[in-house]
Protein backbone atom coordinates (compact mmCIF):
# COMPACT_ATOMS: atom_id res chain seq x y z
CA UNK A 1 0.00 0.00 0.00
CA UNK A 2 1.13 3.52 -0.82
CA UNK A 3 0.16 6.92 0.49
CA UNK A 4 -0.18 10.17 -1.41
CA UNK A 5 -1.09 13.66 -0.22
CA UNK A 6 -4.43 14.91 -1.54
CA UNK A 7 -2.87 17.92 -3.22
CA UNK A 8 -0.30 15.69 -4.89
CA UNK A 9 -3.01 13.45 -6.24
CA UNK A 10 -4.72 16.51 -7.66
CA UNK A 11 -1.52 17.57 -9.34
CA UNK A 12 -1.09 14.07 -10.68
CA UNK A 13 -4.61 14.08 -12.16
CA UNK A 14 -4.14 17.52 -13.66
CA UNK A 15 -0.96 16.20 -15.21
CA UNK A 16 -2.87 13.31 -16.77
CA UNK A 17 -5.51 15.68 -18.11
CA UNK A 18 -2.87 17.93 -19.58
CA UNK A 19 -1.01 15.05 -21.18
CA UNK A 20 -4.18 14.13 -23.03
CA UNK A 21 -3.03 10.60 -23.79
CA UNK A 22 -6.23 9.27 -22.32
CA UNK A 23 -9.52 10.87 -21.53
CA UNK A 24 -9.73 11.47 -17.79
CA UNK A 25 -13.16 10.78 -16.36
CA UNK A 26 -14.36 11.16 -12.80
CA UNK A 27 -17.29 11.77 -10.52
CA UNK A 28 -18.71 15.29 -10.78
CA UNK A 29 -21.82 16.85 -9.34
CA UNK A 30 -24.89 17.49 -11.47
CA UNK A 31 -27.52 19.56 -9.68
CA UNK A 32 -28.03 17.71 -6.41
CA UNK A 33 -26.73 14.40 -7.83
CA UNK A 34 -23.54 12.93 -9.21
CA UNK A 35 -22.42 11.64 -12.60
CA UNK A 36 -19.31 10.21 -14.20
CA UNK A 37 -18.12 12.78 -16.71
CA UNK A 38 -14.99 14.08 -18.42
CA UNK A 39 -12.76 16.09 -16.10
CA UNK A 40 -11.29 19.34 -17.26
CA UNK A 41 -9.71 20.07 -13.92
CA UNK A 42 -9.00 17.81 -10.94
CA UNK A 43 -10.85 20.40 -8.84
CA UNK A 44 -14.13 19.10 -10.32
CA UNK A 45 -13.65 15.65 -8.85
CA UNK A 46 -16.00 14.76 -5.98
CA UNK A 47 -14.65 11.63 -4.39
CA UNK A 48 -16.94 11.73 -1.37
CA UNK A 49 -20.11 11.18 -3.42
CA UNK A 50 -22.84 8.70 -2.51
CA UNK A 51 -23.84 7.24 -5.90
CA UNK A 52 -23.95 8.38 -9.53
CA UNK A 53 -27.14 8.51 -11.63
CA UNK A 54 -25.75 6.08 -14.24
CA UNK A 55 -23.06 3.52 -13.53
CA UNK A 56 -19.70 3.67 -15.33
CA UNK A 57 -20.76 0.87 -17.72
CA UNK A 58 -21.59 3.66 -20.16
CA UNK A 59 -17.88 3.89 -20.97
CA UNK A 60 -17.64 0.27 -22.11
CA UNK A 61 -21.08 -0.04 -23.60
CA UNK A 62 -22.25 3.46 -24.51
CA UNK A 63 -25.97 4.28 -24.46
CA UNK A 64 -25.77 4.34 -28.24
CA UNK A 65 -22.94 2.99 -30.35
CA UNK A 66 -22.32 2.07 -33.96
CA UNK A 67 -21.57 -1.60 -34.61
CA UNK A 68 -21.52 -1.62 -38.38
CA UNK A 69 -21.36 1.00 -41.12
CA UNK A 70 -22.85 0.15 -44.48
CA UNK A 71 -23.10 1.45 -47.98
CA UNK A 72 -25.76 0.18 -50.34
CA UNK A 73 -25.14 2.08 -53.52
CA UNK A 74 -23.48 -0.74 -55.45
CA UNK A 75 -24.31 -4.07 -53.86
CA UNK A 76 -23.61 -3.92 -50.17
CA UNK A 77 -20.51 -2.94 -48.31
CA UNK A 78 -20.39 -3.36 -44.55
CA UNK A 79 -17.65 -2.62 -42.08
CA UNK A 80 -17.38 -3.28 -38.37
CA UNK A 81 -16.95 -0.20 -36.23
CA UNK A 82 -15.60 0.14 -32.72
CA UNK A 83 -14.85 3.57 -31.40
CA UNK A 84 -12.38 3.04 -28.57
CA UNK A 85 -11.27 5.98 -26.47
CA UNK A 86 -8.63 5.06 -23.89
CA UNK A 87 -9.79 6.34 -20.52
CA UNK A 88 -8.86 6.69 -16.91
CA UNK A 89 -11.99 6.44 -14.78
CA UNK A 90 -11.57 7.88 -11.31
CA UNK A 91 -13.78 7.26 -8.31
CA UNK A 92 -15.47 3.93 -8.96
CA UNK A 93 -17.12 2.50 -5.85
CA UNK A 94 -16.62 -1.18 -4.91
CA UNK A 95 -20.17 -2.23 -5.92
CA UNK A 96 -19.61 -0.77 -9.40
CA UNK A 97 -16.25 -2.51 -9.65
CA UNK A 98 -18.01 -5.77 -8.84
CA UNK A 99 -20.60 -5.02 -11.55
CA UNK A 100 -17.85 -4.37 -14.09
CA UNK A 101 -16.23 -7.69 -13.20
CA UNK A 102 -19.55 -9.38 -13.94
CA UNK A 103 -20.04 -7.55 -17.24
CA UNK A 104 -16.52 -8.51 -18.27
CA UNK A 105 -17.55 -12.16 -18.03
CA UNK A 106 -20.78 -11.62 -19.95
CA UNK A 107 -19.11 -9.92 -22.88
CA UNK A 108 -16.07 -12.17 -22.94
CA UNK A 109 -18.29 -15.23 -23.12
CA UNK A 110 -18.04 -16.73 -26.58
CA UNK A 111 -18.44 -15.11 -29.05
CA UNK A 112 -16.54 -12.26 -27.46
CA UNK A 113 -18.06 -8.81 -27.86
CA UNK A 114 -15.08 -6.72 -28.90
CA UNK A 115 -17.05 -3.51 -28.88
CA UNK A 116 -17.16 -3.96 -25.13
CA UNK A 117 -13.94 -5.72 -24.39
CA UNK A 118 -11.64 -3.44 -26.35
CA UNK A 119 -13.07 -0.39 -24.65
CA UNK A 120 -12.72 -2.15 -21.32
CA UNK A 121 -9.13 -3.25 -21.83
CA UNK A 122 -8.09 0.25 -22.89
CA UNK A 123 -9.38 1.76 -19.68
CA UNK A 124 -7.84 2.19 -16.26
CA UNK A 125 -10.10 1.97 -13.24
CA UNK A 126 -9.27 3.96 -10.13
CA UNK A 127 -11.62 2.90 -7.36
CA UNK A 128 -12.40 4.69 -4.15
CA UNK A 129 -13.77 3.36 -0.88
CA UNK A 130 -17.13 4.85 0.01
CA UNK A 131 -17.24 7.77 2.36
CA UNK A 132 -20.97 8.30 2.03
CA UNK A 133 -23.60 5.75 1.20
CA UNK A 134 -26.84 6.34 -0.64
CA UNK A 135 -29.86 5.90 1.61
CA UNK A 136 -31.08 3.27 -0.88
CA UNK A 137 -27.91 1.24 -1.03
CA UNK A 138 -27.51 -2.19 0.51
CA UNK A 139 -24.11 -2.99 -0.98
CA UNK A 140 -23.05 -4.23 2.45
CA UNK A 141 -25.60 -7.04 2.43
CA UNK A 142 -24.52 -8.04 -1.07
CA UNK A 143 -20.90 -8.29 0.03
CA UNK A 144 -19.87 -5.26 -2.02
CA UNK A 145 -19.14 -2.65 0.61
CA UNK A 146 -15.47 -3.20 -0.18
CA UNK A 147 -13.63 -5.14 -2.85
CA UNK A 148 -10.26 -6.85 -3.16
CA UNK A 149 -9.79 -6.82 -6.92
CA UNK A 150 -11.26 -5.49 -10.14
CA UNK A 151 -9.45 -2.13 -9.88
CA UNK A 152 -6.12 -0.89 -11.13
CA UNK A 153 -5.73 1.47 -8.20
CA UNK A 154 -7.92 1.85 -5.12
CA UNK A 155 -8.06 4.97 -3.01
CA UNK A 156 -9.10 5.36 0.60
CA UNK A 157 -9.56 8.83 2.08
CA UNK A 158 -7.36 9.35 5.14
CA UNK A 159 -8.05 13.02 5.85
CA UNK A 160 -5.36 15.02 4.07
CA UNK A 161 -4.03 12.04 2.17
CA UNK A 162 -5.17 8.95 0.27
CA UNK A 163 -4.06 5.40 0.82
CA UNK A 164 -3.44 3.83 -2.62
CA UNK A 165 -3.75 0.10 -3.11
CA UNK A 166 -2.22 -1.15 -6.35
CA UNK A 167 -4.44 -3.74 -8.02
CA UNK A 168 -2.68 -4.42 -11.31
CA UNK A 169 0.41 -3.79 -13.35
CA UNK A 170 -1.60 -1.19 -15.28
CA UNK A 171 -2.11 0.64 -12.02
CA UNK A 172 1.54 0.40 -11.09
CA UNK A 173 2.62 1.70 -14.49
CA UNK A 174 0.26 4.63 -14.21
CA UNK A 175 1.85 5.63 -10.92
CA UNK A 176 5.26 5.38 -12.54
CA UNK A 177 4.21 7.65 -15.39
CA UNK A 178 4.14 10.92 -13.51
CA UNK A 179 6.80 12.26 -11.21
CA UNK A 180 4.61 11.40 -8.29
CA UNK A 181 5.32 12.11 -4.66
CA UNK A 182 4.24 8.83 -3.22
CA UNK A 183 5.56 6.79 -0.34
CA UNK A 184 4.96 3.40 1.25
CA UNK A 185 2.21 3.30 3.85
CA UNK A 186 3.09 3.11 7.52
CA UNK A 187 1.67 0.19 9.53
CA UNK A 188 -0.76 2.58 11.29
CA UNK A 189 -2.05 3.77 7.94
CA UNK A 190 -2.64 0.22 6.78
CA UNK A 191 -4.55 -0.44 9.96
CA UNK A 192 -6.57 2.73 9.49
CA UNK A 193 -7.64 1.58 6.02
CA UNK A 194 -8.63 -1.79 7.45
CA UNK A 195 -10.73 -0.08 10.10
CA UNK A 196 -12.41 2.17 7.54
CA UNK A 197 -13.24 -0.83 5.39
CA UNK A 198 -14.67 -2.62 8.41
CA UNK A 199 -16.80 0.42 9.33
CA UNK A 200 -18.27 0.87 5.86
CA UNK A 201 -19.94 -2.49 6.12
CA UNK A 202 -22.26 -1.18 8.83
CA UNK A 203 -23.07 2.12 7.20
CA UNK A 204 -25.99 0.99 5.04
CA UNK A 205 -29.55 1.89 5.90
CA UNK A 206 -31.02 -0.89 3.78
CA UNK A 207 -30.33 -4.52 4.45
CA UNK A 208 -31.11 -7.99 3.28
CA UNK A 209 -32.43 -10.21 6.08
CA UNK A 210 -30.51 -13.23 4.79
CA UNK A 211 -27.43 -14.18 2.87
CA UNK A 212 -27.60 -13.40 -0.87
CA UNK A 213 -26.53 -16.92 -1.91
CA UNK A 214 -30.06 -18.00 -1.03
CA UNK A 215 -31.56 -15.80 -3.74
CA UNK A 216 -31.57 -18.27 -6.64
CA UNK A 217 -33.38 -20.74 -4.44
CA UNK A 218 -35.87 -18.20 -3.07
CA UNK A 219 -36.65 -16.88 -6.55
CA UNK A 220 -37.28 -20.37 -7.86
CA UNK A 221 -39.79 -20.91 -5.06
CA UNK A 222 -41.64 -17.68 -5.72
CA UNK A 223 -41.58 -17.91 -9.50
CA UNK A 224 -45.05 -19.36 -9.81
CA UNK A 225 -46.79 -17.11 -7.27
CA UNK A 226 -48.53 -14.91 -9.80
CA UNK A 227 -50.54 -12.96 -7.24
CA UNK A 228 -47.36 -11.90 -5.53
CA UNK A 229 -45.79 -10.50 -8.68
CA UNK A 230 -49.01 -8.87 -9.78
CA UNK A 231 -49.51 -7.14 -6.48
CA UNK A 232 -46.00 -5.75 -6.47
CA UNK A 233 -46.02 -4.69 -10.12
CA UNK A 234 -49.39 -2.97 -10.08
CA UNK A 235 -47.95 0.55 -10.14
CA UNK A 236 -45.19 -0.21 -12.62
CA UNK A 237 -44.99 2.25 -15.52
CA UNK A 238 -42.89 -0.14 -17.62
CA UNK A 239 -40.53 2.78 -17.92
CA UNK A 240 -37.32 0.76 -17.82
CA UNK A 241 -35.61 3.16 -15.44
CA UNK A 242 -34.66 0.30 -13.12
CA UNK A 243 -32.94 -1.43 -16.07
CA UNK A 244 -31.19 1.55 -17.50
CA UNK A 245 -29.62 2.77 -14.27
CA UNK A 246 -28.53 -0.71 -13.19
CA UNK A 247 -24.81 -1.49 -13.43
CA UNK A 248 -25.48 -5.13 -14.34
CA UNK A 249 -28.14 -4.59 -17.00
CA UNK A 250 -26.70 -4.98 -20.46
CA UNK A 251 -29.57 -5.74 -22.82
CA UNK A 252 -29.62 -3.88 -26.07
CA UNK A 253 -31.62 -3.23 -29.19
CA UNK A 254 -30.12 -2.90 -32.67
CA UNK A 255 -31.46 -0.65 -35.39
CA UNK A 256 -30.30 0.72 -38.72
CA UNK A 257 -30.12 4.47 -39.13
CA UNK A 258 -29.88 5.63 -42.70
CA UNK A 259 -28.28 8.70 -43.91
CA UNK A 260 -30.91 10.81 -45.70
CA UNK A 261 -29.35 9.81 -49.04
CA UNK A 262 -30.63 6.31 -48.25
CA UNK A 263 -27.39 4.97 -49.66
CA UNK A 264 -25.40 4.64 -46.46
CA UNK A 265 -25.96 4.45 -42.77
CA UNK A 266 -25.09 2.91 -39.45
CA UNK A 267 -26.28 -0.11 -37.56
CA UNK A 268 -26.43 1.02 -33.95
CA UNK A 269 -27.05 -0.65 -30.67
CA UNK A 270 -28.69 1.14 -27.81
CA UNK A 271 -29.57 0.19 -24.28
CA UNK A 272 -32.84 -1.64 -23.97
CA UNK A 273 -34.66 -3.00 -20.95
CA UNK A 274 -36.74 -6.04 -20.19
CA UNK A 275 -39.27 -3.89 -18.32
CA UNK A 276 -40.29 -2.19 -21.57
CA UNK A 277 -43.45 -3.55 -23.08
CA UNK A 278 -42.11 -4.45 -26.53
CA UNK A 279 -39.00 -6.24 -25.28
CA UNK A 280 -40.21 -9.77 -26.03
CA UNK A 281 -42.75 -8.94 -28.73
CA UNK A 282 -42.41 -10.50 -32.17
CA UNK A 283 -43.81 -9.72 -35.61
CA UNK A 284 -47.50 -10.45 -35.73
CA UNK A 285 -47.99 -9.10 -32.23
CA UNK A 286 -47.30 -12.15 -30.03
CA UNK A 287 -45.69 -10.89 -26.82
CA UNK A 288 -43.97 -13.51 -24.70
CA UNK A 289 -44.05 -11.29 -21.59
CA UNK A 290 -47.16 -9.26 -22.13
CA UNK A 291 -48.10 -8.45 -18.54
CA UNK A 292 -46.35 -5.89 -16.36
CA UNK A 293 -46.06 -8.52 -13.64
CA UNK A 294 -44.27 -10.94 -15.99
CA UNK A 295 -41.74 -8.33 -16.91
CA UNK A 296 -41.35 -7.22 -13.32
CA UNK A 297 -40.67 -10.78 -12.26
CA UNK A 298 -38.25 -11.25 -15.14
CA UNK A 299 -36.05 -8.44 -13.87
CA UNK A 300 -35.77 -9.99 -10.42
CA UNK A 301 -35.06 -13.38 -11.96
CA UNK A 302 -32.25 -11.79 -13.92
CA UNK A 303 -30.78 -10.04 -10.91
CA UNK A 304 -31.02 -12.88 -8.44
CA UNK A 305 -30.71 -15.99 -10.50
CA UNK A 306 -29.85 -15.87 -14.16
CA UNK A 307 -26.30 -14.60 -14.02
CA UNK A 308 -25.76 -16.80 -11.02
CA UNK A 309 -26.71 -19.90 -12.95
CA UNK A 310 -24.64 -18.86 -15.92
CA UNK A 311 -21.58 -17.26 -14.37
CA UNK A 312 -21.85 -17.81 -10.63
CA UNK A 313 -22.63 -14.19 -9.71
CA UNK A 314 -25.62 -12.61 -8.01
CA UNK A 315 -26.23 -9.79 -10.47
CA UNK A 316 -27.58 -7.29 -7.99
CA UNK A 317 -24.62 -5.50 -6.44
CA UNK A 318 -26.76 -3.46 -4.05
CA UNK A 319 -26.11 0.04 -5.41
CA UNK A 320 -29.73 1.13 -4.85
CA UNK A 321 -29.92 3.05 -8.12
CA UNK A 322 -33.07 1.27 -9.27
CA UNK A 323 -34.98 1.94 -6.08
CA UNK A 324 -33.88 5.53 -5.74
CA UNK A 325 -34.91 6.38 -9.30
CA UNK A 326 -38.17 4.44 -9.62
CA UNK A 327 -40.84 7.12 -9.42
CA UNK A 328 -43.65 4.92 -7.97
CA UNK A 329 -41.07 3.43 -5.57
CA UNK A 330 -41.63 -0.23 -6.32
CA UNK A 331 -38.19 -1.28 -7.53
CA UNK A 332 -36.39 -1.78 -4.20
CA UNK A 333 -34.69 -5.17 -4.34
CA UNK A 334 -34.44 -5.40 -0.54
CA UNK A 335 -38.18 -5.02 -0.31
CA UNK A 336 -38.89 -7.85 -2.76
CA UNK A 337 -36.01 -10.07 -1.65
CA UNK A 338 -36.95 -9.74 2.03
CA UNK A 339 -40.54 -10.62 1.14
CA UNK A 340 -39.25 -13.76 -0.59
CA UNK A 341 -37.39 -14.65 2.58
CA UNK A 342 -40.48 -13.95 4.73
CA UNK A 343 -42.70 -16.14 2.51
CA UNK A 344 -40.23 -18.98 1.97
CA UNK A 345 -41.09 -22.65 2.43
CA UNK A 346 -38.43 -24.40 4.41
Amino acid at each position, binding site marked *: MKVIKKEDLKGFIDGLIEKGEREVVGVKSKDSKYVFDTLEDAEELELDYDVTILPPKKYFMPQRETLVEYKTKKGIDMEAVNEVIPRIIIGVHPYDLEAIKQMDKVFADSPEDYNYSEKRSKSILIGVNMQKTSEWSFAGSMGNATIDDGYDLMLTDLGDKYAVEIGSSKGRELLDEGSLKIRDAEPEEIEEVENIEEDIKNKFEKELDFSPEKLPWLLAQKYGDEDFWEENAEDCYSCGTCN*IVCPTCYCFDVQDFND*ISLEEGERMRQWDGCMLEAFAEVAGGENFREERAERYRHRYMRKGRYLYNRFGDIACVGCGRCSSQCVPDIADPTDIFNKLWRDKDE
Partner: protein
Amino acid sequence: MKPEEKPKVAFFDFAGCEGDQLQIANLEEKILDLLNIVEVVSFREVMTEHSDDYDVAFIEGSITDTHNEERLKEIRENADVLVAIGACATIGGINSIRNVQDFEKVQDRVYGDERDHYEAWEKAKPAKAVVDVDYEVHGCPIDRDEFLHVVQSLVMGREPHIPDHPVCVECKLNENVCAFERDEFCVGPVTRAGCDSCCVNEGTICWGCRGMIDNPNEDAHEEVLEEYGLTAEEVMNKFDLYFAWQKEVRKDE
Protein backbone atom coordinates in the same frame (compact mmCIF):
# COMPACT_ATOMS: atom_id res chain seq x y z
CA MET B 1 -32.69 0.77 -51.28
CA LYS B 2 -33.50 4.00 -53.03
CA PRO B 3 -36.73 4.01 -55.03
CA GLU B 4 -36.70 5.02 -58.69
CA GLU B 5 -39.21 7.84 -58.57
CA LYS B 6 -39.55 10.63 -56.05
CA PRO B 7 -42.98 10.76 -54.43
CA LYS B 8 -44.83 14.10 -54.67
CA VAL B 9 -45.65 15.54 -51.29
CA ALA B 10 -48.01 18.30 -50.15
CA PHE B 11 -48.52 20.02 -46.81
CA PHE B 12 -51.90 21.07 -45.42
CA ASP B 13 -52.73 22.98 -42.29
CA PHE B 14 -55.76 22.82 -40.05
CA ALA B 15 -56.25 24.23 -36.55
CA GLY B 16 -52.69 24.54 -35.33
CA CYS B 17 -49.90 27.02 -35.04
CA GLU B 18 -47.94 25.91 -38.13
CA GLY B 19 -44.97 25.47 -35.84
CA ASP B 20 -44.36 22.04 -37.30
CA GLN B 21 -44.19 23.29 -40.85
CA LEU B 22 -41.78 25.91 -39.60
CA GLN B 23 -39.60 23.15 -38.18
CA ILE B 24 -39.52 21.61 -41.65
CA ALA B 25 -38.92 24.91 -43.44
CA ASN B 26 -36.00 25.35 -41.02
CA LEU B 27 -34.32 22.07 -41.82
CA GLU B 28 -31.54 24.18 -43.33
CA GLU B 29 -28.87 22.16 -45.07
CA LYS B 30 -30.89 18.98 -44.67
CA ILE B 31 -33.73 20.37 -46.74
CA LEU B 32 -31.72 19.73 -49.88
CA ASP B 33 -31.21 16.10 -48.91
CA LEU B 34 -34.91 15.87 -48.30
CA LEU B 35 -35.63 17.27 -51.75
CA ASN B 36 -33.39 14.53 -53.09
CA ILE B 37 -35.88 11.91 -52.05
CA VAL B 38 -39.24 13.72 -52.37
CA GLU B 39 -40.72 16.39 -54.61
CA VAL B 40 -42.65 19.09 -52.75
CA VAL B 41 -45.65 20.24 -54.78
CA SER B 42 -47.45 22.27 -52.16
CA PHE B 43 -46.11 23.95 -49.04
CA ARG B 44 -47.63 27.27 -48.02
CA GLU B 45 -44.80 27.98 -45.62
CA VAL B 46 -42.22 28.28 -48.40
CA MET B 47 -43.94 28.44 -51.80
CA THR B 48 -46.92 29.98 -53.48
CA GLU B 49 -47.73 27.33 -56.09
CA HIS B 50 -50.15 24.62 -55.18
CA SER B 51 -50.98 21.34 -56.86
CA ASP B 52 -53.57 18.69 -56.22
CA ASP B 53 -51.42 16.03 -57.81
CA TYR B 54 -49.65 14.53 -54.79
CA ASP B 55 -48.85 11.07 -53.43
CA VAL B 56 -48.17 11.98 -49.84
CA ALA B 57 -50.17 14.46 -47.75
CA PHE B 58 -48.79 15.91 -44.54
CA ILE B 59 -51.48 17.14 -42.21
CA GLU B 60 -50.82 19.69 -39.51
CA GLY B 61 -53.35 20.88 -36.95
CA SER B 62 -56.42 19.39 -35.36
CA ILE B 63 -59.85 19.01 -36.83
CA THR B 64 -62.34 21.32 -35.17
CA ASP B 65 -65.36 21.69 -37.44
CA THR B 66 -67.23 20.01 -40.28
CA HIS B 67 -65.59 22.15 -42.89
CA ASN B 68 -62.21 20.82 -41.70
CA GLU B 69 -63.56 17.33 -41.71
CA GLU B 70 -64.68 17.48 -45.32
CA ARG B 71 -61.45 19.01 -46.48
CA LEU B 72 -59.44 16.31 -44.73
CA LYS B 73 -61.57 13.56 -46.26
CA GLU B 74 -60.93 15.01 -49.67
CA ILE B 75 -57.20 15.06 -49.07
CA ARG B 76 -57.37 11.44 -47.95
CA GLU B 77 -59.06 10.55 -51.25
CA ASN B 78 -56.30 12.24 -53.22
CA ALA B 79 -53.32 10.90 -51.31
CA ASP B 80 -51.80 7.43 -51.31
CA VAL B 81 -50.16 8.11 -47.99
CA LEU B 82 -51.35 10.41 -45.26
CA VAL B 83 -49.06 11.60 -42.49
CA ALA B 84 -50.20 13.49 -39.40
CA ILE B 85 -47.52 15.84 -38.11
CA GLY B 86 -47.44 17.53 -34.74
CA ALA B 87 -49.43 17.00 -31.58
CA CYS B 88 -52.54 18.80 -32.88
CA ALA B 89 -52.82 16.37 -35.77
CA THR B 90 -51.74 13.24 -33.88
CA ILE B 91 -53.50 13.62 -30.53
CA GLY B 92 -55.63 16.76 -30.77
CA GLY B 93 -52.80 18.75 -29.21
CA ILE B 94 -53.21 21.78 -27.03
CA ASN B 95 -56.49 22.40 -28.85
CA SER B 96 -58.01 19.47 -27.06
CA ILE B 97 -57.83 21.19 -23.68
CA ARG B 98 -61.15 22.62 -24.65
CA ASN B 99 -62.51 19.11 -24.75
CA VAL B 100 -62.61 19.19 -20.99
CA GLN B 101 -63.61 22.83 -20.62
CA ASP B 102 -66.95 24.54 -20.79
CA PHE B 103 -67.80 24.67 -24.50
CA GLU B 104 -69.66 28.00 -24.37
CA LYS B 105 -66.70 29.72 -22.79
CA VAL B 106 -64.30 28.23 -25.28
CA GLN B 107 -66.38 29.49 -28.16
CA ASP B 108 -66.56 32.95 -26.67
CA ARG B 109 -62.86 33.08 -26.18
CA VAL B 110 -61.91 31.72 -29.56
CA TYR B 111 -64.44 33.30 -31.83
CA GLY B 112 -65.86 36.20 -29.77
CA ASP B 113 -68.66 37.89 -31.63
CA GLU B 114 -68.15 35.82 -34.73
CA ARG B 115 -68.99 32.60 -32.98
CA ASP B 116 -72.23 32.12 -34.83
CA HIS B 117 -70.47 31.95 -38.19
CA TYR B 118 -68.57 28.81 -37.22
CA GLU B 119 -69.95 25.38 -36.73
CA ALA B 120 -67.13 24.61 -34.37
CA TRP B 121 -67.24 21.21 -32.73
CA GLU B 122 -67.37 20.81 -29.05
CA LYS B 123 -64.16 18.78 -29.27
CA ALA B 124 -60.94 19.13 -31.18
CA LYS B 125 -59.97 15.90 -32.89
CA PRO B 126 -56.75 14.50 -34.28
CA ALA B 127 -56.62 13.44 -37.93
CA LYS B 128 -57.02 9.76 -37.12
CA ALA B 129 -60.40 10.42 -35.51
CA VAL B 130 -61.67 11.42 -38.96
CA VAL B 131 -59.66 9.47 -41.58
CA ASP B 132 -57.11 6.64 -41.72
CA VAL B 133 -53.62 7.88 -40.96
CA ASP B 134 -50.60 5.97 -42.28
CA TYR B 135 -47.78 7.62 -40.36
CA GLU B 136 -47.54 9.96 -37.40
CA VAL B 137 -44.84 12.41 -36.43
CA HIS B 138 -45.46 13.27 -32.79
CA GLY B 139 -44.52 16.30 -30.77
CA CYS B 140 -45.27 19.96 -30.25
CA PRO B 141 -43.40 20.96 -32.22
CA ILE B 142 -42.15 17.91 -34.10
CA ASP B 143 -38.54 16.84 -33.96
CA ARG B 144 -36.79 17.46 -37.27
CA ASP B 145 -34.76 14.28 -37.20
CA GLU B 146 -37.79 12.20 -36.49
CA PHE B 147 -39.62 13.92 -39.33
CA LEU B 148 -36.79 13.03 -41.70
CA HIS B 149 -36.77 9.48 -40.42
CA VAL B 150 -40.49 9.11 -41.09
CA VAL B 151 -40.12 10.57 -44.58
CA GLN B 152 -37.29 8.12 -45.29
CA SER B 153 -39.38 5.27 -44.02
CA LEU B 154 -42.38 6.09 -46.13
CA VAL B 155 -40.21 6.54 -49.20
CA MET B 156 -38.79 3.08 -48.53
CA GLY B 157 -42.20 1.66 -47.67
CA ARG B 158 -41.21 0.49 -44.21
CA GLU B 159 -42.41 1.13 -40.69
CA PRO B 160 -40.47 3.90 -38.94
CA HIS B 161 -39.09 3.25 -35.44
CA ILE B 162 -41.40 5.26 -33.23
CA PRO B 163 -40.85 4.25 -29.63
CA ASP B 164 -43.77 2.99 -27.59
CA HIS B 165 -42.06 3.43 -24.25
CA PRO B 166 -42.06 6.34 -21.80
CA VAL B 167 -39.89 9.45 -22.02
CA CYS B 168 -38.18 8.28 -18.79
CA VAL B 169 -36.13 5.85 -20.90
CA GLU B 170 -34.47 8.65 -22.83
CA CYS B 171 -34.35 10.83 -19.75
CA LYS B 172 -32.30 8.21 -17.93
CA LEU B 173 -30.09 7.57 -20.96
CA ASN B 174 -29.33 11.29 -20.84
CA GLU B 175 -28.53 10.96 -17.14
CA ASN B 176 -30.90 13.73 -16.09
CA VAL B 177 -31.80 14.40 -12.49
CA CYS B 178 -35.43 13.35 -12.41
CA ALA B 179 -38.05 16.07 -11.94
CA PHE B 180 -39.37 14.15 -8.97
CA GLU B 181 -36.01 14.53 -7.27
CA ARG B 182 -36.17 18.29 -7.86
CA ASP B 183 -39.61 18.74 -6.27
CA GLU B 184 -41.18 19.03 -9.67
CA PHE B 185 -43.66 16.75 -11.37
CA CYS B 186 -43.73 15.41 -14.82
CA VAL B 187 -45.85 13.19 -17.07
CA GLY B 188 -42.81 11.57 -18.71
CA PRO B 189 -43.73 8.14 -17.26
CA VAL B 190 -46.83 7.91 -19.46
CA THR B 191 -45.61 9.93 -22.46
CA ARG B 192 -44.23 8.45 -25.66
CA ALA B 193 -40.46 8.85 -26.01
CA GLY B 194 -38.75 9.88 -29.23
CA CYS B 195 -37.85 13.50 -28.44
CA ASP B 196 -34.67 12.46 -26.61
CA SER B 197 -36.33 13.91 -23.46
CA CYS B 198 -35.33 17.33 -24.74
CA CYS B 199 -37.33 19.37 -22.23
CA VAL B 200 -35.91 17.60 -19.20
CA ASN B 201 -32.42 17.86 -20.68
CA GLU B 202 -32.93 21.63 -20.54
CA GLY B 203 -33.79 21.46 -16.86
CA THR B 204 -37.58 21.57 -17.12
CA ILE B 205 -40.15 18.76 -17.12
CA CYS B 206 -42.05 16.71 -19.67
CA TRP B 207 -45.49 18.13 -20.40
CA GLY B 208 -46.55 15.22 -22.54
CA CYS B 209 -46.59 16.79 -25.99
CA ARG B 210 -45.93 13.48 -27.76
CA GLY B 211 -49.05 11.98 -26.29
CA MET B 212 -49.43 8.91 -24.14
CA ILE B 213 -47.86 5.57 -25.04
CA ASP B 214 -50.25 2.87 -26.21
CA ASN B 215 -50.57 1.25 -22.81
CA PRO B 216 -49.86 3.88 -20.17
CA ASN B 217 -50.27 3.17 -16.47
CA GLU B 218 -52.26 6.36 -15.92
CA ASP B 219 -53.88 5.19 -12.73
CA ALA B 220 -50.56 4.56 -11.09
CA HIS B 221 -49.20 7.89 -12.22
CA GLU B 222 -52.23 9.82 -11.01
CA GLU B 223 -51.89 8.14 -7.64
CA VAL B 224 -48.19 8.89 -7.48
CA LEU B 225 -48.75 12.56 -8.28
CA GLU B 226 -51.29 12.77 -5.50
CA GLU B 227 -48.88 11.08 -3.14
CA TYR B 228 -46.37 13.74 -4.01
CA GLY B 229 -48.93 16.26 -2.77
CA LEU B 230 -50.69 17.44 -5.92
CA THR B 231 -54.41 18.08 -5.60
CA ALA B 232 -56.79 16.06 -7.76
CA GLU B 233 -57.33 19.13 -9.89
CA GLU B 234 -53.64 19.75 -10.39
CA VAL B 235 -53.25 16.16 -11.46
CA MET B 236 -56.12 16.53 -13.93
CA ASN B 237 -54.53 19.63 -15.39
CA LYS B 238 -51.26 17.81 -15.92
CA PHE B 239 -53.02 15.09 -17.83
CA ASP B 240 -55.35 17.31 -19.79
CA LEU B 241 -52.76 19.61 -21.27
CA TYR B 242 -52.10 17.14 -24.08
CA PHE B 243 -53.91 13.92 -23.27
CA ALA B 244 -57.55 15.01 -23.20
CA TRP B 245 -58.52 13.32 -26.45
CA GLN B 246 -56.49 10.16 -25.78
CA LYS B 247 -57.97 9.82 -22.31
CA GLU B 248 -61.46 10.03 -23.64
CA VAL B 249 -60.79 7.36 -26.24
CA ARG B 250 -59.27 5.10 -23.63
CA LYS B 251 -62.26 5.62 -21.38
CA ASP B 252 -64.62 4.61 -24.18
CA GLU B 253 -62.72 1.41 -24.87
